[in-house]
């Protein structure tokens, strides 16, 4: 019915390799993009600012993490630290009068350089020990940011992000902030979508499946691990910078703690490892759902006149967050991407489901 595949004939290599061969999906992407561009007109500013904006930025960040975990198969438990490096370098650069465009690239570059240190451990160890060492690096970077006044601006300090211009347009209104995030998210998405068509993407997948085996067929596994860490750090650094400049407005060490790393990891895993659409869904799920359910519970409690303690109400989102991850790992370990694929497959054959192989 939808997703009609009739009329799709691969008459050239270019056609065969295109991203969305099914016309319906091309329409889908186009409409979604149009909706995203029109969002400032369609949505109330509050929703735009507090739901759409963080969703887009976190999706870009989660895609970066997905590159390293889902594609290259290397654990990264210190992603928030990488984002913090980007955020701090961009803030400092902008405060010293560097144009925002250059500050963003600088944020990515700094994050890449320091983030590649994570890859050095990937040279020696894999699996659990890589996870633990990246976790330790997260603590070290957290500590350095906390303790060096030149970076954090003193203990317990927040650094205000200055007002900036991007390509001559001031990033001040909600709409301009939203478009900054949207452009970045679309750029990262396009990169990730195209990754599977490139030699780099295939090399990363080879390293993920087995790095020795990849080495045997001529894929320099350490080089590609390094590239994976560097690329994801770049994405993470710029995302961190954009997060601070468009969403938080100021940068503090508390925005990028270990818990945030774990949250990013949860987004990627709930979304589905190695899936682009999964990252979008996973971020929405982790970022928005606990809050929404908690609001619903609160509304229900006031309506039914239940006596729910204030401490309990305050921590319902945290509880739900834990329960949701546990439930997903138990019942749908391939994540939301798998649910989406199942649904798409169902529609693809509907109403002739029996013809499915």
């Amino acid at each position: 019915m939808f997703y009609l595949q009739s009329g799709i004939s691969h008459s050239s290599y270019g056609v065969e390799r295109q991203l969305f061969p099914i016309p319906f999906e091309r329409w889908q992407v186009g409409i979604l993009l149009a909706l995203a561009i029109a969002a400032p007109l369609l949505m109330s500013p509050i929703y735009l600012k507090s739901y759409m904006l963080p969703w887009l930025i976190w999706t870009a960040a989660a895609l970066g993490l997905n590159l390293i975990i889902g594609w290259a198969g290397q654990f990264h438990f210190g992603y928030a630290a990488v984002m913090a490096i980007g955020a701090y370098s961009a803030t400092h650069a902008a405060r010293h009068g560097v144009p925002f465009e250059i500050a963003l690239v600088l944020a990515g570059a700094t994050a890449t350089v320091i983030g590649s240190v994570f890859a050095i451990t990937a040279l020696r160890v894999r699996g659990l020990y890589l996870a633990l060492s990246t976790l330790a690096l997260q603590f070290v970077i957290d500590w350095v940011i906390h303790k060096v006044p030149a970076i954090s601006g003193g203990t317990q300090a927040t650094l205000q992000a200055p007002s900036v211009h991007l390509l001559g347009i001031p990033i001040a209104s909600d709409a301009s902030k939203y478009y900054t995030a949207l452009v970045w998210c679309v750029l990262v998405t396009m990169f990730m979508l195209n990754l599977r068509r490139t030699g780099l993407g295939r090399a990363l997948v080879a390293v993920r499946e087995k790095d020795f085996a990849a080495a045997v067929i001529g894929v320099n596994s350490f080089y590609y691990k390094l590239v994976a860490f560097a690329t994801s750090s770049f994405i993470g650094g710029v995302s961190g910078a954009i997060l601070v400049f468009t969403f938080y407005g100021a940068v503090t060490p508390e925005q990028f703690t270990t818990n945030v790393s774990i949250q990013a990891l949860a987004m990627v895993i709930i979304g589905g490892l190695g899936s682009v659409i999964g990252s979008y869904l996973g971020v929405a799920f982790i970022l928005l759902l606990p809050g929404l359910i908690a609001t619903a519970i609160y509304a229900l409690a006031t309506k039914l006149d239940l006596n729910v303690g204030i401490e309990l109400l305050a921590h319902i989102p945290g509880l739900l967050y834990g329960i949701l991850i546990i439930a997903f790992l138990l019942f749908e370990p391939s994540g939301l991407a798998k649910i989406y694929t199942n649904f798409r497959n169902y529609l693809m054959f509907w109403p002739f489901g029996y013809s499915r192989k």
Partner: protein
Amino acid sequence: MDWSLLMELALNGGLSGLMYSLVALGVVLIYKSSSVPNLAQGALSMLGAYVVLAISEALHAPIWLSLVLGMTAMFLLGMGIERVALRKMAGRPLVMILMMTLALEIFMRAAALAAWGATTRVMPLGISSEPLFLGDVLLNRSYLVGGVVAVLLFSFFLVFFRTRMGTVLRAISDNYTASWSVGISVERGVALSWAMASVVATVAGVLWASIQGVDHSLSHLLLMGLTVAVLGGLDSLAGAIIAGLLLGVFQGIASGYLDRLVGGGSRDLVVAATLMLTILIRPHGLFGRADIQRI
């Protein structure tokens, strides 16, 4: 150089290191039997302390009785966690298992906060805060009790692993499939190791709570416990004790001198750096078994 200060830092550091070993023992127990790196051990300690406190407040029971009751409750909880959350995860990719233990940690922390709030409470363990003088060296009594308990628990496990049940656990840790084929109930063994780890976590949580109070920051013990466990070797109980001592002494001395330079808080840095360096130089730790990678 002030030698008595150095001695004091080293001794107190060593004793507090033994208390880290308590957390590490739990991690090692679970890793040994099921190769699951338990990142929820810190939260288990926190929960244990809360449960003991809640029991003593609810029943107005003496602290030893609530300790026993709390440990029993945590024993059951540990088995429950294994049954509900971890059993289905066997054989899944490591990243899923790590995420599961992290999710358990998030859940337990949020549950404790929701149930008991964020205020710090006092754990009435009855250890006086008077310092103990050993010559001209000051000893913290709580640390001393913690160190002694750690050594006692370790000796208990030394004996336990020679009993029938202990042998079963060792067999499981050696080879899952082989244990199955000779009729060992691997599930029960793993559940038992989770239960024992929860009990050890309770002891660790209560002892640490008597020093820093009962609140959710007890779950930060995870980093210390994990570092000690990795330094000693993730599958070595003796390693956990010795590494705890080493890390404690090192951390005590290093932070004693470093804190003045950087204005406090260098303990965490020492721990994280130790974890990093251990993994870079000797991933299987001091006494752990080096993994042989199958290609």
